[in-house]
């Protein structure tokens, strides 16, 4: 009998402990929560953390700390990242170990983050695509990168301003850009020469004007191979200098509705796209960022649009069978004024109530954006270096010499003003999908461009309203 009583008392107390533990985790701030979660782990670490709370984070003893890093890089990019991580693990002077885990594509990784944060077992650092930015800020799970940078006295001016602009909200850099790309126009120089065209078009209109020449004289199967990709749609809005959503493109506050219907941006894009399609200049080559590349590499299309990060792939596929030229991403009409916004992904530090891990995470991020790492990364993958000093590294310079086409992307980014940083939207992945579906339906003649824009706006606005209602 006595044993039973003791047992049940123990059980109850354990349950209680578990409950308070959960409560502590759920709270994002507050010292009690902090203390409780730490007691739950191991004593030595707690003593260490407490002993150092007063000291600046630069002086924390980081040795023996292991941090978890979730990323979405596979293939060539994955190998390059693994090399960087291995090098850090082998050489860093702090004794930090980074446990890098591939979590599938961007969508999969962010979904896993959602599930794991419910269970309270997220990573310390995660790579999230650019359209997940608003979601990450709203989630309340992150330590703004600015805080970590400031704590360590890192000079934020070192990050390329146009890249930092995208991830800077309310004057704070929320996440560290890591792999950054912009879209550019790729063209088949041989076809342009054969057609006697010396000036590369700067707009969709311009492409329409030379399309017949490219096909008839240049020998192209089609003038433009443009995948139906939401990112391009967003870029065309930026190139018009207009906004995608209200509240300053979702930057001063979470967006409540899209703007592209009322400011006419979307209608202009869809109408021009449909026009090119109807004339046979830009057939439907499929949905997605890479959909247009095959036709180009196979020597069928004279022009394609794609990410800078595709440059290596395109050059590989073309394999010298024709000369590949690059130019700025086109606007819709010739007289549009605007710029491109960046794509790619950035690194987010997750708030795990552990100062030591946060400091270790920063050290790793600092290493990843160092001149040497970024130059290596850019050379291996085709993404931009995100820090200024990386552009002066020998490795990177010789890469530019080898692939002069890459210079276009750098110039394009430098020519863009920070105000065209692009939109932030909590439901961006879904919105992009909607845009793609409606554009495709329009091309297939199921609806007029006007109807398409109306449908896009209605669907996305409903999603935004739902999201804002449910996630306050």
């Amino acid at each position, binding site marked *: 009998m006595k044993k039973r009583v003791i047992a049940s008392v123990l059980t109850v107390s354990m349950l209680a402990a578990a409950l308070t533990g959960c409560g502590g985790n759920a709270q994002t701030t507050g010292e009690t929560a902090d203390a409780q979660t730490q007691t739950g782990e191991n004593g030595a670490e707690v003593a260490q953390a407490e002993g150092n709370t007063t000291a600046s984070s630069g002086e924390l003893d980081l040795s023996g700390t292991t941090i978890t890093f979730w990323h979405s890089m596979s293939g060539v990019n994955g190998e390059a990242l693994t090399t960087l991580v291995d090098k850090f693990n082998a050489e860093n002077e702090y004794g930090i170990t980074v446990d890098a885990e591939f979590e599938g594509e961007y969508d999969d990784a962010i979904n896993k983050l959602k599930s794991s944060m419910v269970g309270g077992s997220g990573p310390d650092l995660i790579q999230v695509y650019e359209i997940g930015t608003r979601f990450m800020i709203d989630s309340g799970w992150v330590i703004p990168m600015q805080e970590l940078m400031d704590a360590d006295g890192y000079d934020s001016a070192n990050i390329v301003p146009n890249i930092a602009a995208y991830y800077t909200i309310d004057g704070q850099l929320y996440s560290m850009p890591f792999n950054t790309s912009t879209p550019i126009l790729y063209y088949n120089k041989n076809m342009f020469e054969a057609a006697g065209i010396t000036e590369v078009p700067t707009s969709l209109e311009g492409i329409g004007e030379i399309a017949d020449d490219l096909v008839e004289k240049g020998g192209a199967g089609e003038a433009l191979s443009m995948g139906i990709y939401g990112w391009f749609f967003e870029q065309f809005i930026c190139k018009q200098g207009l906004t995608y959503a209200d509240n300053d493109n979702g930057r001063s506050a979470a967006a409540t509705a899209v703007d592209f219907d009322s400011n006419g941006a979307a209608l202009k894009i869809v109408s021009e796209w449909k026009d090119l399609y109807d004339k046979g200049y830009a057939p439907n080559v499929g949905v997605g960022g890479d959909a247009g590349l095959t036709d180009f590499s196979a020597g069928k299309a004279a022009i394609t649009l794609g990410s800078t990060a595709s440059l290596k792939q395109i050059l590989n596929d073309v394999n010298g069978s024709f000369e590949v030229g690059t130019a700025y991403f086109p606007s819709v009409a010739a007289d549009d004024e605007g710029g491109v916004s960046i794509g790619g992904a950035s690194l987010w530090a997750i708030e795990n109530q552990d100062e030591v891990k946060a400091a270790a995470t920063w050290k790793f991020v600092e290493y990843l954006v160092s001149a040497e790492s970024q130059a290596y990364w850019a050379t291996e993958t085709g993404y931009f270096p995100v820090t200024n000093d990386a552009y002066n590294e020998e490795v990177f310079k010789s890469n530019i010499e080898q692939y002069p086409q890459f210079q276009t992307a750098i110039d394009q980014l430098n020519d863009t003003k920070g105000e065209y940083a692009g939109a932030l939207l909590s439901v961006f992945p879904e919105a992009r999908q909607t845009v793609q579906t409606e554009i*495709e339906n329009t091309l297939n003649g199921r609806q007029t461009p006007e109807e398409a824009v109306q449908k896009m706006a209605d669907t996305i606005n409903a999603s935004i309203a739902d999201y804002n*209602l*449910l996630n306050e």
Partner: protein
Amino acid sequence: MKTVMKMKQRLGAYLFFVPCLTIFALFLFYPFAKTIYLSLYKTDKLGQAKLFVGLGNYAELFTSESFFHSLLVTFIFVAIVVSVSMLLGLITALLVNKNFPGIRVFSTAYALPMAIASSAAALIFEIMLDPTIGIIDKVLGTDINWLHDERYALVCVALLTAWLNSGINYLYFSAGLANIDEAIYERASVDGANEWQKFTRLTLPGLSPILFYTVVVNIILAFQSFGQVKILTEGGPGESTNLIVYSIYRDAFFNFRFGGAAAQSVVLFTMIMILTLIMFKLEKRGVKY
């Protein structure tokens, strides 16, 4: 005393159920109940029930053009997949029912689709169907963008699925054919029956029990096709291959709207259940054992 003994015996019997029931409860009943529960709510960004909307999600579904379109597409898809895959399975099974040299090669080949993962097959077909580098357009001398043309995309995905499913049908039918007594064919020959008569009067009735089973299994399999759609078309072009299972996936794991996705799941479940019930009714009339 005797009643107590009996009670104990009975209890023991029920105890044997426990492991099985636990597994069912954990992996079947609980998720099922949770799905119904979620279908009555709108969920937040973590996918947790937040706002009770009653039948709101269902009401939204049944007023949504896109959902009805998705249902229509699914039915067309299932019809193509079931008929073609069963026909393929039956033909291949009949072909190897006779003994001839090299039969093992053929019987392996016909069963092979079963061993191929749908995603792997989809990747291969994606290349084969490509208008620029694909072999199909080259062989046919056409310039059709199979997967990005509304007229062909659904048929392409359906035929791929049919081929994948034909392997298992081939196995079922082979087993069914082996069960038919050879002697009745001999007797039919003596009576002067031709091959076609033998097939319609002897083979098909002999296959009817297994035929019924394969129809049920095929319909359920076809309804659940996912990997092919995800890889080949992602529901496109437009929404022409947006099968209901794919639509559920998108809503749940991409848009994080578990409420709507759960409601669709319940509707799908109800449909398959009704279909299966109807078929069991029909079975009593048509199938001879």
